């Protein structure tokens, strides 16, 4: 009885991984072939798939935290843009070094997120609206900082060149197979998974999302948890922005538009409830990969972009419907 129950429960726990597997297998079946080779499974292509979702993936990890406490963060795409601009401006225009630039950009994201957390937790404004405003503010700041233009990044030791160490972030490693952005995503995801498993903070986070009043009565520092979570989300969004800048060799204030919705989709497809208190980072990673594989296979088959919109919409609904099969709570 308990035996059976735990197997079933385990299966359902990983069902977002199953969704991913299903899409993966479908991708192999529907993949175009060239000279007998299945294009989808080529090492290069798989690396591309993961690289393409690495930014959304990093953001989605932070978004998972926010959604777990029952909030939402619409500002992440704009914060990504702000961070991309920041990295470019600091390293290229202000000739800052690699470390100080990256650190400042990360701190900016952290503080921006924390301020949103303060507005949510201490003033009590709904996070949807706080971060909707945050989106506009971050976008405005990015435009002002960059002068409205994308700031191109050239590498070298000269003036107005970014240090080569920064360029490394965009390279590939492990025999040219694994792009560094993928590595960063993996590290962030694994760290988050472990963090959620072992830390006391994670209990507090689930508690705040699951029953805020109970959390408060139990002595959980609800306000601090909320601020910390929004700060983490801002931090990860700006990390994604740094990765973005290095991958595109520029920081543009208009980058990351709409990324928040992709990230939220990844989180929800991954089985995290928008009501808070329930979900996992592992699911989110699976959700992000699922979206990446879907995008890739549609593109490899050159599906018309309008039809792609339809198919993606339907797959998202289907993936979410699959989530509903879990034993009701």
């Amino acid at each position, binding site marked *: 009885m308990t035996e059976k129950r735990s197997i079933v429960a385990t299966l359902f726990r990983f069902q977002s991984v199953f969704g991913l597997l299903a899409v993966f297998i479908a991708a192999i079946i529907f993949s175009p072939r060239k000279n007998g080779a299945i*294009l989808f499974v080529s090492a290069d292509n798989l690396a591309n798939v993961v690289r393409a979702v690495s930014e959304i993936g990093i953001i989605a990890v932070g978004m998972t935290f926010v959604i777990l406490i029952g909030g939402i963060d619409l500002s992440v795409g704009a914060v990504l843009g702000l961070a991309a601009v920041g990295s470019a401006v600091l390293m290229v225009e202000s000739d800052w070094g690699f470390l100080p630039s990256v650190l400042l950009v990360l701190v900016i994201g952290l503080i921006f997120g924390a301020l949103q957390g303060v507005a949510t937790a201490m003033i009590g404004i709904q996070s949807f609206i706080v971060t909707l405003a945050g989106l506009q503010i971050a976008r405005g700041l990015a435009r002002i900082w960059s002068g409205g233009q994308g700031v*191109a990044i050239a590498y070298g030791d000269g003036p107005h060149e970014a240090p080569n160490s920064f360029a490394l972030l965009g390279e590939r490693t492990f025999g040219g197979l694994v792009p560094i952005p993928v590595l960063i995503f993996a590290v962030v995801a694994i760290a988050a998974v472990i963090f959620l498993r072992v830390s006391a903070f994670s209990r507090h986070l689930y508690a705040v999302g699951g029953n805020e009043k109970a959390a408060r009565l139990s002595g959980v520092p609800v306000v601090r948890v909320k601020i910390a979570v929004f700060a983490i989300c801002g931090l990860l969004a700006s990390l994604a922005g740094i990765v973005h800048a290095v991958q595109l060799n520029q920081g543009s204030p208009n980058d990351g538009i709409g990324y928040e919705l992709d990230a939220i989709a990844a989180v929800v497809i991954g089985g995290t409830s928008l009501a808070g208190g329930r979900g996992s980072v592992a699911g989110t990673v699976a959700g992000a990969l699922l979206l990446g594989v879907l995008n890739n296979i549609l593109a490899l088959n050159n599906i018309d972009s309008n039809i792609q919109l339809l198919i993606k919409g339907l797959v998202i609904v289907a993936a979410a419907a699959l989530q509903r099969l879990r034993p009701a709570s």
Partner: protein
Amino acid sequence: GTTSDRTGGSPSDGASKSCKGADGKYTIGMSQANVAEPYRQRMDDDIRAAAKEVPQFDVKFADAAQDNAKQVADVDNYITQQIDLLIISPNEATPLTAVVKKAFDKGIPVLVLDRKVDGDAYTGFIGGDNVQIGSEAGKYVAEKLLPNGGNIVELKGLAGATPQAERHQGFVDSIKANPKIKIIADASGDWLREKGQAQMDALLKANPKIDVVYAHNDPMAEGAYLAAKSVGREKEMKFIGIDALPIPSGGIKAVEQGRLSATFTYPTNGKEAIAAAKKLLVDCGTIEKSQVLPTRLIDKDNAAKIYAEENPAG
């Protein structure tokens, strides 16, 4: 006439390698920055129409929906598919330079449309010249509409976009000659009709005397016209736009129907791109590294004729 120049004598190596002559079958990948812009949708449509005439060509389309990263992925996917030629209309130059170079280095000939990428790792560029267009528009205003001076309001494109800056610069430079012509106000309409309308509502309020509205594209010019019309002031001023898309909702029709005084073509380069591709792949020839297509003034006199020319089927 076509202004052209040969930069760097290197004939495209890519072309010679991929050329299989008239018996070959060719898959061409077209990476579009954002089909949500009418101009770019028309570019795709022009490419599609022109490619129909070349039986060897099979053109695939991808839309980056205004996202640099997505466009990089689109090109990556084309490389995976081992296409024979890449046409790209980049969302922005720098972010796409690396991936375009990657394709080019793999021996795929690359045609860059509308916006250049950095460096010279591509086979050919075909585009318009926004500074020149702005300056033509300025000249038209200075000579035809306001020889005795007057007040202009400018509806700009999305803040930060290169064409916005160029269309502004060219215009300003060419009206400078007449000090009695003044740009009394400007606003950003983000290329959108409804935004142009809303901004114009406010501009009309704040400025009792407006003689010319110069909009960086036709949709904003149309929006401005609608705003003026709704307060009954559309007859007091002239509206000019840019792009002159030969589509029913485009600027040429608006000129023909009298809402706009003039518009200036911003060529989509679709036809020219397919011609270049044919030259490279089917004819095993070479193409100019850079081909800049000139703009044309569309006014009441030639609008109907040009519209018909551009839409031969009907």
